């Protein structure tokens, strides 16, 4: 089949179109159920609530584009969260301690990602099993650092996070920075090499693409964004919790797939994953405001996610025939 004018403007070129449609529908439903939804303050607090998952999903996207997967992302969030809080609280909550804590947290995220990348890309371990295992190790470390949720960070930190900068809420700045980062990366040779690696690893290798380094890079980015998500959670909760990231691993993968990125690699992008994360968050909102009985919430949430995924699959089928 050759490209026709019709197929050129489709999910083929814009894999996140489906996610955008679902996102708008959910916004509309949410606005009906919760009349204040469109107010700026409410929207900003929604972004704050969805931000950690969106950040993890952004990092996960790079790994998935290379046809790998990072099942340790949630554990990295937990580990960085407790380490940062422990450093800041342990050093008395001074300005220096905050700076040191944030920098250490980011470095730790990079390190965790690099460990994953080295195991998968250079030692050629199987990605699913490897990152599942390193995830257990990271989660174990988190429990060792802080066995129970607790400790505190000084108000300066969480007030800054909840506050505004130049009249714009801090969380929007962070989201904008993540989008800017993604837009920059998408215009590098690295990104082309990443997609080529995910599209056909053997062909990429034969073309001279440094496949192992590219995969390592993707895992490192995933670690970095998991660390950013952890910092966002510190700002959000003002305390440490060794179990806080657990659910983020699979929801980040779900967000990536909802956003149109193919698990087999090459196709997709960060924009879709952010939409995917917001979709997951909006689904929780809708269920909350629809005042469904508690025992029905999980069931309905699962069904909506399945319906959103099915939409993407149906559109993908349509373009293959």
């Amino acid at each position, binding site marked *: *089949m050759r490209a026709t004018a019709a197929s050129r403007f489709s999910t083929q070129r814009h894999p996140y179109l489906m996610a955008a449609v679902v996102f708008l529908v959910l916004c509309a439903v949410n606005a009906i159920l919760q009349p204040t939804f469109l107010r700026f303050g409410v929207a900003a607090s929604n972004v704050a609530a969805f931000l950690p998952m969106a950040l993890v999903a952004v990092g996960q996207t790079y790994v998935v584009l290379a046809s790998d997967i990072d099942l340790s992302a949630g554990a990295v969030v937990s580990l960085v969260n407790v380490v940062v809080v422990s450093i800041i609280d342990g050093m008395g909550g001074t300005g220096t301690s905050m700076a040191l804590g944030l920098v250490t947290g980011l470095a730790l995220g990079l390190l965790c990602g690099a460990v994953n990348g080295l195991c998968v890309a250079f030692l050629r371990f199987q990605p699913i099993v490897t990152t599942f295992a390193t995830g257990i190790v990271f989660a174990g470390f988190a429990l060792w650092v802080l066995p129970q949720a607790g400790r505190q960070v000084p108000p300066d930190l969480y007030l800054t996070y909840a506050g505004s900068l130049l009249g714009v809420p801090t969380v929007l700045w962070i989201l904008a920075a993540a989008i800017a980062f993604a837009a920059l990366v998408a215009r590098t*040779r690295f990104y*082309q090499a990443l997609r080529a690696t995910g*599209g056909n690893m053997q*062909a990429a*290798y034969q073309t001279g693409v440094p496949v192992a380094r590219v995969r390592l890079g993707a895992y490192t980015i995933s670690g970095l964004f998991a660390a950013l998500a952890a910092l966002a959670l510190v700002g959000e909760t003002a305390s440490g919790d060794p179990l806080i990231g657990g659910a983020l691993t699979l929801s980040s993968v779900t967000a990536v797939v909802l956003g149109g990125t193919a698990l087999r690699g090459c196709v997709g992008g960060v924009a879709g994953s952010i939409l995917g994360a917001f979709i997951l968050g909006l689904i929780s909102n809708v269920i909350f405001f629809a005042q469904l009985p508690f025992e029905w919430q999980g069931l309905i949430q699962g069904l909506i996610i399945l319906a959103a995924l099915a939409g993407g699959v149906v559109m993908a089928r349509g373009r293959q025939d």
Partner: protein
Amino acid sequence: MPVLEASGVRKQFGGVVALAGAQFALEVGEVHALIGSNGCGKSTLCKIIAGSVAADAGSLLLDGRAVSFAGPRQAAAAGIGVFYQELSLIREMTVAENILLGREPRGRAGMLDRDALEAAAAAALAQFDDVLGAGVHPRARVADLSADQSQLVEILKVLAAGPRILIFDEATAALDRNQVSAVFQRIRALKGEGRSVIFITHRMDEVFEIADRVTVMRNGATVLTCALAQITRDELVGTMVGGAVARAGRDRRHVPSEEIALEVENLSAAKLAGVSFKLRRGEIVGLGGLHGQGQSELLRALFGATPLRGGAVRVAGQPLDPRGPRAVMRRSIAYVSGDRGRYGVMAIRPIFENLVISLLARDRRWTVARQRLEREVGPFIERLKLKFSSLRAAVSELSGGNQQKVVLGRWLATRPGVLLLDDPTKGIDIQTKEDLYATMDELCGQGVAILLHSSDDEELLAVADRVLVFNGGQVMGELSGEQRTRFALYQAAYASKHPA
């Protein structure tokens, strides 16, 4: 001084010797054809030059200096460009992204310059403007291109790197006559610029049309290098197949009945373009030619493992719709692959399970009555002279040959009328091979029809009553009786022409 010189190159894969001291020298500004029969080592030699395989011994000189490449990246940096037969394109990426992969133009702050990328790709595409056909533009996805268009894009990708040494491995296989002319024109221009080309093809016409010199390889060694002006076609084919001339098939001939067991008419599928033939009961028909010309694809398509695009298949006169292996096996057709690890044995499961799986799959039995099944497969265990300690032992404990007997046994238990054998003796010992040949003869005597593909030309010519010679997914010739010689096989294998 040659621009590239390989000498004494040796390479072994497991126990198989792929190269046993190959010599090769490429002069500046020449087109050098590299030809040989199946398994002669020409692909391995190219992969060593391209840096994707490391040699065990021997030297590689580039401009007289010894080099050894750690990977394709280093080879590319040294000015070697490779057209890969299986293509190195990323299907989900655009034509422009593929052509300039790894060499994307960068603008401000090192960021990718998409406009420049697409302009460069458009300039590259302009070289083949007349022959590319509709739908090829810088933003087109490679997945949306046809086979010939993809092949031209792969050629442009190789050219875009501006290599001094180009290796074209079957670069013209899917092209029509005009497209080949355009490619040859480019190759002549490259020659004029002082670049050197190694050209591999399965079309003798092309060798004489484009190449200055030819090197013939046989059994992992170089047997001849000479100018094409000094040699004829028949001499080349003779050199390729070696001195042991014209060994005809064995004396044991089968006596096919007149009944047609399998009739294939104009069958098309992935890598197959209009294959027609008839297979009679009690006959072995061989599928030959150079590797990867559609022989395995035909067997897998007939077994329903890959979808058909067109054509008709009749089994014993009745139409067959090969929409899945299960539908096909219910029509008494069996398939045995030489790729046991992938399509044959379930390695960690017991021999017994491996033996009965086809019966179970065909008959949709609700329960597994072990003793009854043992009685059913018992005769075949004896007939195949299967050696094992216990039926409960994992099949992986057996030798490769015995594993293959298990796979054959599971199909014999279904009493097939047609047997599809895809290189069944690959990697098994001589004694087991003889056992398998004897079994095949015996089956023929009982009226079973066998379609056999083998990567071993001698075996194919010796075992099959007729050999269909494949080239580019089509049957290019049929050899029977005294014609079944390696010479005739390679004459036919190299004979095809491009569609106009």
